[in-house]
């Protein structure tokens, strides 16, 4: 699981163009949207595409993303439970 979390942090930084943010700076339980890492609605869509492309998980209802993308912890748990 910790390997997956590190992988997710790297992907988040690369795919969301988070310049000047390092893997070490993203805590496992850090809130990704709003006051935390400051991601926005377009980032949420990018994360949905990433789940599909890299882990074969399709989110049928984008509203589910709110809980799934709360933190790296919640993302990793969701991927572990649902990946093909």
């Amino acid at each position, binding site marked *: 699981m910790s390997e997956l979390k590190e992988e997710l942090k790297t992907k988040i930084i690369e795919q969301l163009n988070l*310049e*000047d943010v390092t893997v070490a700076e993203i805590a496992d339980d850090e809130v990704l949207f709003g006051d935390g890492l400051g991601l926005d609605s377009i980032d949420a869509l*990018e994360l949905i595409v990433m789940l599909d492309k890299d882990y074969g998980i399709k989110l049928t209802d984008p509203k589910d993303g709110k809980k799934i993308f709360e933190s790296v912890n919640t993302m990793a748990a969701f991927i572990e439970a649902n990946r093909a």
Partner: protein
Amino acid sequence: MENTYYISNYCSIKNGKASLNGNSQITSSETEIPLVLKNIYKELDLNYRKFFKMDTLSKLSFLAAEMLLKTPTEAIEERDIAVVLSNNASSLDTDRKHQKSIADSTNYYPSPAVFVYTLPNICIGEICIRHRLYSENSFFIFDDFSGEHLFDYASSLISSKKSNEVLCGWVNVDEENYEAFMYLVSTEKSKIEHTTKEINRLYQEL
């Protein structure tokens, strides 16, 4: 159109060089446009994380506007500055990236972050968000730079009291080619009169 307006400031970004009022401000030794723009961003000492999420056209426009308007302040918001930009490549540079992501039906993963920039006027939106401009704005696609059209449109905006000032210019990105030329039209008297001849002269200086 009988009123006389003035070009208070102008700037350009081309061939790795960013100039303000004809004076070179920043020179980048990089040749690839993403690195050139990143250099200019760093040299301008900006701290705006969203910059790195923009497409190349928006980054180029953002930096040129930044040189003219500097750090956002309430004073800028109150100046009522309209934005009129133009180019001849529209958003083609980003359109190609989007097209590439949807060309293969077996590997069909369009990026939302790329797709949102597949319109040229999005770069105006980025400038307006940064400087809190709630003013008139337009983006024109021309075959070539048209000082005459920009002159007419900016003059009309000010004379009809749609705005007090106009941020005008040409921002173009097509593969490895890029250039930005922006200027501020104002009613306040300055050295350069706002005429088609002067606009074309300043553009030719690039």
